[in-house]
């Protein structure tokens, strides 16, 4: 089994494509860092009074009758966070490496990692079919199940590698540009109860990456399954990236239906239970975990069954 995983790894990392993905990733981190550095707003010395002033205008905006409900709730959240900051004497601090890494993960790279993982996962099975090398793999004394498993594990290892590269790159770039200070900085969020709470920024960074990898594993599994079923890299990559982008919108659009909660994408982001309110009311962490496990098992079982069963066609 180790030999097979070693083979799959060789085929991923001996390939230019994988390294181009890594270079793009690091490039984006550097670019974002430079932009943030040059557009950084200075922090006023008397931050409490300036916060109070901006709070006043926020309150006016919230009470305005023609303010849309969604904007209103966002403003109210900012207001609450400001009030919490003043009450707990938490000064808005300059960006640090930790804050930068968190921003990177949340704003851009989080999704991009999933896209890149989808590219590798979508190609790892279908690619062997389109080049005909699948015949080399399947005419050796190894069971098809083991070959598929080794490919799946190699895909997950590649995702881990991408995550590690991104995290290290954003911390290094952030550290160089903004310094490593502020390890004790808090991150403020509104819990499901409506109250503002705080969590350490460094802890938040790691927790966020953790939640994101769940989404990533599911995307990888979708790409992998489609790759196995359709034997076409293009179809697998396209469908999985598409579902990554429209999944959440779909859940939002269909929210009036009671079965909406059974859609995979209503459940992939588990951070909604810790750092916010669930997208659909009435959903619980237990429900989402059950759904994720169910989807995971069904998709992998389908790939496994088809890969073992099907003829390697007469092309």
């Amino acid at each position, binding site marked *: 089994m180790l030999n097979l995983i070693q083979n799959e790894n060789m*085929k991923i990392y*001996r390939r*230019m494509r994988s390294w181009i993905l890594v270079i793009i990733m690091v490039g984006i981190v550097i670019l974002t860092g430079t932009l943030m550095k040059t557009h950084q707003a200075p922090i006023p010395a008397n931050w409490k009074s300036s916060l109070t002033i901006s709070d006043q205008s926020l309150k006016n905006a919230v009470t305005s009758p023609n303010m849309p409900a969604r904007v209103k709730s966002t403003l109210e959240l900012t207001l609450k966070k400001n009030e919490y900051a003043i009450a707990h004497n938490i000064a808005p601090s300059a960006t640090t490496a930790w804050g930068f890494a968190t921003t990177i993960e949340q704003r851009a790279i989080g999704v991009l990692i999933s896209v890149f993982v989808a590219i590798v996962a979508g190609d790892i099975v279908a690619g062997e079919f389109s080049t005909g*090398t699948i015949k*080399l793999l399947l005419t050796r*004394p190894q069971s098809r199940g083991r070959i598929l498993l080794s490919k799946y594990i190699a895909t997950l290892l590649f995702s881990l590698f991408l995550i590690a590269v991104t995290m290290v790159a954003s911390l290094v770039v952030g550290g160089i540009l903004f310094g490593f200070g502020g390890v004790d900085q808090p991150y403020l969020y509104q819990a499901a109860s409506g109250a503002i709470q705080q969590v350490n920024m460094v802890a938040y960074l790691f927790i966020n990456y953790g939640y994101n990898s769940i989404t990533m594993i599911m995307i990888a599994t979708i790409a992998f399954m489609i790759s196995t079923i359709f034997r076409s890299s293009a179809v697998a990559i396209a469908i999985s990236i598409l579902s990554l982008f429209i999944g959440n919108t779909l859940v939002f659009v269909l929210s009036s239906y009671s079965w909406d909660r059974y859609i995979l994408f209503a459940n992939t982001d588990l951070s909604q239970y810790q750092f916010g309110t669930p997208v659909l009311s009435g959903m619980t962490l237990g429900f989402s975990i059950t759904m994720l496990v169910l989807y995971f098992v069904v998709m992998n079982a389908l790939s496994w069954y088809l890969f073992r069963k099907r003829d390697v066609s*007469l092309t």
Partner: protein
Amino acid sequence: MAEQAAVTLQNVTKRIGAKTLVDNLSFEIPAGEVFGFLGPNGAGKTTTIRMMVGLISMTQGKVLIKGHDVVREHRAALSQIGCIVENPELYKFLTGYQNLLHMARMTPGTPRARIDAVVEMVGLQKRIHEKVKTYSLGMRQRLGLAQALLHRPSVLILDEPTNGLDPAGIRELRDMLRRLAREEGMSVIVSSHLLSEMELMCDRVAVIAQGKLIHVERVQDLMAIGNEAQATIFEVADPGAALSHLREHLSETFEMVTESAKAIRLTLTRDQIPQVIETLVLGKIPLYGVQTQGKTLEDTFLQMTGDGVIA
């Protein structure tokens, strides 16, 4: 049979929907034999080979490799097989050596030294550390053969192995296959529609057409069948006169094939030739020469497979 056959096919059948691609194929191949698998395109050669190496399922029947069922004892059977199915598809973005390393890792118990040995065997030492995408088709064939031989299989299955090889390469391959069969007791199964090669390469040939086994015979015997009736050319000054004389005086009927300005061509069995000569000489018809054209394996083959019509 006292000795176990290296490869046994029993009633192997492949049906997809209503179409029967391979129909009830049965034969045995002993160790150390070079076995040719002959048939026109679409006859079911590749389908049969794919079933033998477990790439596709069988509708019926079974394949035994050294007594191991390819389906039920997949690993035991496959560890005895080295194969190239259709083109030697390899990982183009890897070097030749990395390709072999990849294959060696898939078969437990293949030492690294064996990689160097097979590289030398196929004569790729100079280019083995270059990427496969820079290889010519002939070099890819060699690398394909190297990966097939890597784990010392007892059965070597090659689908159209001479594709893309130059004449020297074909000759080299032929010599190597014969040597492997003779010295290492390997059974070699070669499929081809190039008959002239099969004549030189194989001990025995199975002819299949439209999924059915038509004939299994030793190559020499197969060619002997063709010698039963052969085209015989008689060089004469006046073909018209010669023919009419033969029609008058020869008791047996014969088939006239062609008539040219200086010769007549008849299809005759070996026994009929002296009679015709005698008749011509007695009729004082000047005979300048007699030439027989033995049927090639190709003629026999085309005759057996219905002139290569794809059903």
